[in-house]
């Protein structure tokens, strides 16, 4: 799984391990979210090259299965605390493109009124709570969210994310330990995309698997192939079930690859070519597309049609947002405190 074993690996796309929990329409839906995330990403990259994007553009190419498959395992009362490479989860939670684009481009009408950008927003109606830049900080917050529901006798699950880098923050430790002691319904996806900015895993930690940390918290831990969406989904369904049953948090490490630089300004020349090639074969969308085509769940034409429609929608959202002005200056002076 890890790119360490690169050389010996086969060069063909590895097959998906189908989950018994999924119906074909659900498969198509997940596929659609992944494609949407990918196309959103490509669009942002394009805007960035054109100098029309705003703020950092953090690609999530390579992460679609991890993000979509995990969020898809949640129920309609559960909450999502996504990170900077989890656009897929926003779509699963029903986010519309205009709202997202207004946030990314900090335009008038953005849920954040221009105070912040990218996916940092919260959309309470959709049960999406954005993150802050400081890595690890949202883990205790996501835990506290479900501590509150638990106190009220509600059983909702909170899902959040951290990277192979962010797992080294003190707040990761305090948050996961707190959730474990309180047996909170928290699912933490550790997205190990092999790099934290320019730092490979070996700079960040010395354990075999990041899910090995579960033992030291007394919670559940598992490391999986994060490019097989059905595996991600099924693993997360089990984690969500355990959470609902009161069995406490799970650390699910999804092994993936960050297929571009940390953000678009980064040429990621520090990533060995062979590593990228290895993971290119495991592109989560390619893998799932092959599977869906081979199982005849979708035809090649279907895929083209879906993709074309998504691209059009994204283009429309960009056209809509980019013409809008930035929020007016007065917004800067509002809401330091709420009433």
């Amino acid at each position: 799984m890890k790119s360490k074993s690169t050389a010996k690996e086969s060069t063909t796309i590895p097959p998906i391990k189908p989950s018994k929990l999924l119906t074909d329409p659900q498969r198509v839906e997940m596929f659609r979210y992944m494609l949407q995330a990918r196309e959103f990403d490509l669009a942002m990259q394009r805007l960035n090259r054109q100098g029309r994007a705003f703020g950092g553009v953090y690609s999530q190419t390579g992460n679609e299965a991890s993000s979509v498959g995990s969020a898809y395992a949640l129920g309609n009362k559960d909450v999502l605390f996504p990170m900077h490479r989890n656009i897929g989860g926003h779509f699963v939670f029903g986010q519309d493109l205009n709202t997202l684009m207004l946030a990314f481009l900090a335009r008038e009408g953005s849920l954040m009124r221009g105070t912040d950008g990218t996916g940092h927003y919260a959309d309470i109606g959709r049960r999406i709570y954005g993150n802050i830049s400081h890595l690890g900080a949202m883990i205790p917050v996501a835990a506290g969210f479900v501590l509150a529901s638990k106190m009220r006798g509600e059983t909702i699950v909170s899902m959040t994310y951290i990277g192979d880098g962010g797992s080294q923050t003190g707040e990761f430790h305090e948050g996961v330990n707190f959730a474990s002691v309180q047996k909170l319904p928290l699912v933490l996806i550790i997205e190990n995309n092999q790099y934290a900015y320019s730092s490979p895993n070996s700079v960040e930690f010395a354990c075999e698997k990041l899910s090995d940390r579960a033992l030291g918290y007394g919670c559940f831990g598992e490391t999986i192939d994060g490019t097989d969406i059905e595996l991600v989904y099924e693993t997360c369904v089990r984690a969500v079930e355990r959470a609902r049953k009161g069995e406490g948090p799970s650390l699910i490490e999804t092994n993936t690859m960050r297929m571009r630089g940390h953000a678009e300004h980064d040429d990621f020349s520090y990533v060995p070519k062979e590593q990228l090639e290895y993971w290119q074969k495991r592109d989560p969308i390619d893998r799932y597309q092959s599977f869906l085509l081979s199982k005849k769940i979708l035809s090649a034409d279907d895929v083209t049609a879906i993709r074309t429609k998504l691209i059009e929608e994204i283009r429309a959202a960009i056209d809509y947002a980019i013409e809008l002005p930035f929020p007016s200056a007065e917004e800067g002076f509002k809401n330091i405190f709420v009433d």
Partner: protein
Amino acid sequence: MPQLTYLEAIADALRTEMRRDERVFLLGEDIATYGGAFKLTKNFHEEFGRKRVLDCPISESAIVGAAIGAALNGMRPVAEMQFMDFVTCGFNQIVNVAATTAYRWGIGVPIVVRGPSGGGVGANPFHSRNSEAWFAHASGVKVVCPAFPADAKGLMTASIRDNNPVVFYEHKGLYRKIKEEVPEGEYSIPLGKANVVREGKNGTIVAYGSAVHFALAAAEELSKEGASVEVIDIRTLVPFDQETVLASARKTNRVLIAHEASLTAGFGGEIAARIAEHAFEYLDAPIMRVAAYDAPTPFAPTLEKAVLPNAEKVLSAMRKLLTY
């Protein structure tokens, strides 16, 4: 009205609010079984249960972070720092998560982070800090520093009811030192209202927390010497009641600012700056400050006394100011 200590008054506020509003709950280290290091929440878990009086691991970031998360989900948590010094371990959560959420998301984060601060009790550099100025500079956090039992109750009530993050500095030296009549039942004092605790006309001492008592003692002494000194307890640093302070400066024309926190970049500078900008024409003398020497708060009583401000130091500075 019952006579309560400062500590009892705070406990009374917590208890009253917890009875009134089931969204209010407490979390912190050793607050349930033990009732808190200062026994402020003694027996609370018996009335409210261990879920609403939650003993937590030694993880200040998790405590504050969990409070924020619970607040986002409809609760009104009150998080205890066993000593306010340990807020440095939960600092990021307060200044970056709690302080920015209203601005960024339009959602209030109604948490209170409270605990014992301050020196003068022979603790050590890590159990004596007065760090309120850090949060006053954080933009998005309210900062409360009561000096009296009744104020402590009223301001705690208001802090719990406030829809924004509040850092609430209790002075451990005041916990059992003073008793006064404290209104029973629900009692709230709006945040952002300074209190003229003693009227005077020859000069003003602006203070908060323990320094209010230094100021009052100095004013009392000075009254024997024929000087009439006004004492203003600002009570909350954020929001800051600029008008009350300026009004007094304009009336008495001489201002001394006193706080227990160390001098440099303490909140006294902020107060002085506002007066120097907005009441400049009324001043007959330099604005003076009495504060701790810029050092960690030392352990030995000889050193601690030398480093921290006290009534005598305020008195002698005020004498100078009045004769300027």
